[in-house]
């Protein structure tokens, strides 16, 4: 609007100071963008896309202790359970131990039923079920390594050697699955192999199904079903622990550390500093412009309008710095996408929303004191140099 030029002119009155303050803001928001993106990622790890429609049943001792296959009918018999699958961690790495990948041995058709989020042509599902050495890959994983349907895929297991002692397993890629929506697509980094083949060909651990995942007939039945499943094995050597898939995932993330705490602590330090810096800049700017502000008032600008001008100036300053910083963060976020298995830049709309919120709060906190001062400024005192 028409006052924009006035605000802009005021901001760039002291070019060096404004530029340097802007640069500091850019740095602060670059950091904010990246760190908040990490925060959001770790928080949403618990948002398993179907919420509480699946239950994960593991050995009570730990999830690395495989539950026996013979438990399957027991779990299937629990009221409220619609379909059950099992998955055994394969301990996969590709070519070098460093390239660890996520792979599970499953029953193909059970997988299809329990995870309707995976979208794959029917023909490929059938091929998976009928090909003993078949393997299906998530789209993200396939893209990352450029794996194609039809090719042979040699995979190593750092846990299970084959009967002949070799750790090198060879599979045939029979399908690539996608997620049903953007959220699900973010999770397409897993490989699935045929459990029957795997169980027969592995040297030890035969009959161990890994963990069980049950699809609920009704979404919010999780607690009761979990309790009933666990009740069946109390005091037996194979005691189970069942919880919603969401809880299970969250647990995992929590173990890495209080990521939240660390990130928020750093962000806190950064914002405190930025607050001080920008606050100082704005306070100084207003101090220097007292005669000008007084003149504006003589021209007929009301006390409030002068206050709004200062607030607008503060908002513009912080807004521009934040926008530039976030843009930079988004670009860097694209580079980190692979590491976090994200579909696009990890600095997504959610992070931008947080940034926008912080800009408003910051602008208010920083801008209000000098703006108030500008509002209360008495024309005659200012003109007289008092």
């Amino acid at each position, binding site marked *: 609007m*028409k*006052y924009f*030029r*006035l605000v802009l*002119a*005021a901001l*760039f*009155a002291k070019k060096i100071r404004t530029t340097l303050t802007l640069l500091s803001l850019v740095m602060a928001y670059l950091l904010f963008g990246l760190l908040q993106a990490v925060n959001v990622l770790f928080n949403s790890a618990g948002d398993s896309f179907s919420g509480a429609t699946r239950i994960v049943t593991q050995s009570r001792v730990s999830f690395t202790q495989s539950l026996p296959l013979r438990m399957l009918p027991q779990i299937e018999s629990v009221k409220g359970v619609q379909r059950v699958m099992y998955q055994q961690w394969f301990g996969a790495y590709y070519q070098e131990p460093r390239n660890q990948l996520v792979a599970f041995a499953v029953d193909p058709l059970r997988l299809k039923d329990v995870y309707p989020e995976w979208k794959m042509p029917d023909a490929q599902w059938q091929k998976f079920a009928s090909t003993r050495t078949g393997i299906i890959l998530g789209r993200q994983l396939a893209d990352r390594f450029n794996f194609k349907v039809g090719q042979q895929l040699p995979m190593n297991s750092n846990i299970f050697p084959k009967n002949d002692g070799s750790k090198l397993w060879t599979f045939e890629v029979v399908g690539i699955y996608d997620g049903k929506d953007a959220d699900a697509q973010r999770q397409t980094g897993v490989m699935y192999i045929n459990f029957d083949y795997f169980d027969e060909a592995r040297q030890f651990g035969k009959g161990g199904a890994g963990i069980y995942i049950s699809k609920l007939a009704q979404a919010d039945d999780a607690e009761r079903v979990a309790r009933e499943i666990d009740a069946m094995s109390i005091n037996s050597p194979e005691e189970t622990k069942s919880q919603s898939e969401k809880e299970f995932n969250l647990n995992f993330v929590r173990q890495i550390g209080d990521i939240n705490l660390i990130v928020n602590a750093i962000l806190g330090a950064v914002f405190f500093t930025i607050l001080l810096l920008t606050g100082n800049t704005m306070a100084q700017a207003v101090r220097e412009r007292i*005669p*000008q502000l*007084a*003149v*504006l*008032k*003589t*021209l*007929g*600008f*009301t*006390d*409030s309008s002068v206050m709004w001008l200062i607030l607008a100036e503060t908002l513009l300053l912080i807004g521009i710095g934040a926008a530039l910083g976030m843009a930079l963060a988004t670009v860097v976020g694209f580079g980190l996408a692979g590491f976090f298995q994200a579909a696009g830049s990890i600095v997504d709309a959610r992070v931008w929303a947080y940034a926008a919120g912080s800009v408003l709060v910051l602008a208010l906190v920083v801008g209000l004191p000098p703006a108030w001062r500008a509002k209360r400024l*008495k*024309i*005659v005192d200012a*003109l*007289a140099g008092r």
Partner: protein
Amino acid sequence: MSSLIEIKNLSKSYVRGKQSIEVLHELSLSIPKGDFVALMGPSGSGKTTLLNLIGGLDQPTRGEVSIDGKRIDQLSGNALAAWRARNVGFVFQFYNLMPELTAERNVELPLLLTGLSAANRGKRARIALEIVGLGDRGRHKPKELSGGQEQRVAIARALVADPTLLVCDEPTGDLDRKTADEILRLLQTLNTEQGKTIVMVTHDPKAAEYAKRILHLDKGQLVDDVSNKG
């Protein structure tokens, strides 16, 4: 000539710490439309205070100030601001232009408070600059102008909303003799040809000669009211 400025029993006191200092004491005067008045007096006489009250920059402690029939001493902050925008133009000793705006944009400032379109505002600003003789300097920034030119821009800004009253506080205080004369002549022209009523505070007797009437203040009271026959 009808009265533009009517002042009745005007008093103004300031509170400094615990003391109350009375700067103006029961002042009464009348300034007709089209007059050009110089306010003079020693430092501390209250002339600037009187000017501020006439211009609506401050409120009196007691008494009445009427401008063109309107009691401005009864107006509140925002109403007073609105009144100033339409009725008064200010010229200060130090030109108080916005350094980052061009001359034209500086002149345009008072018009931002009106509903005029950008095109109209620009037109009016350019006309005002023409009147003060700076029609070709619109695009210059204050730092590219001389002291006298800056003051002209300030005068153009004071004119642009077409107020009836011009209030000037030591407008030539910072200028050399020659430039000061130019500015004062400009003010005179505005008074005689455009009918602007001008109230000017000055300590320079030579500047006062350009006015039609000289009011002397001392210790907050009017002590002399002289017609200028020059």
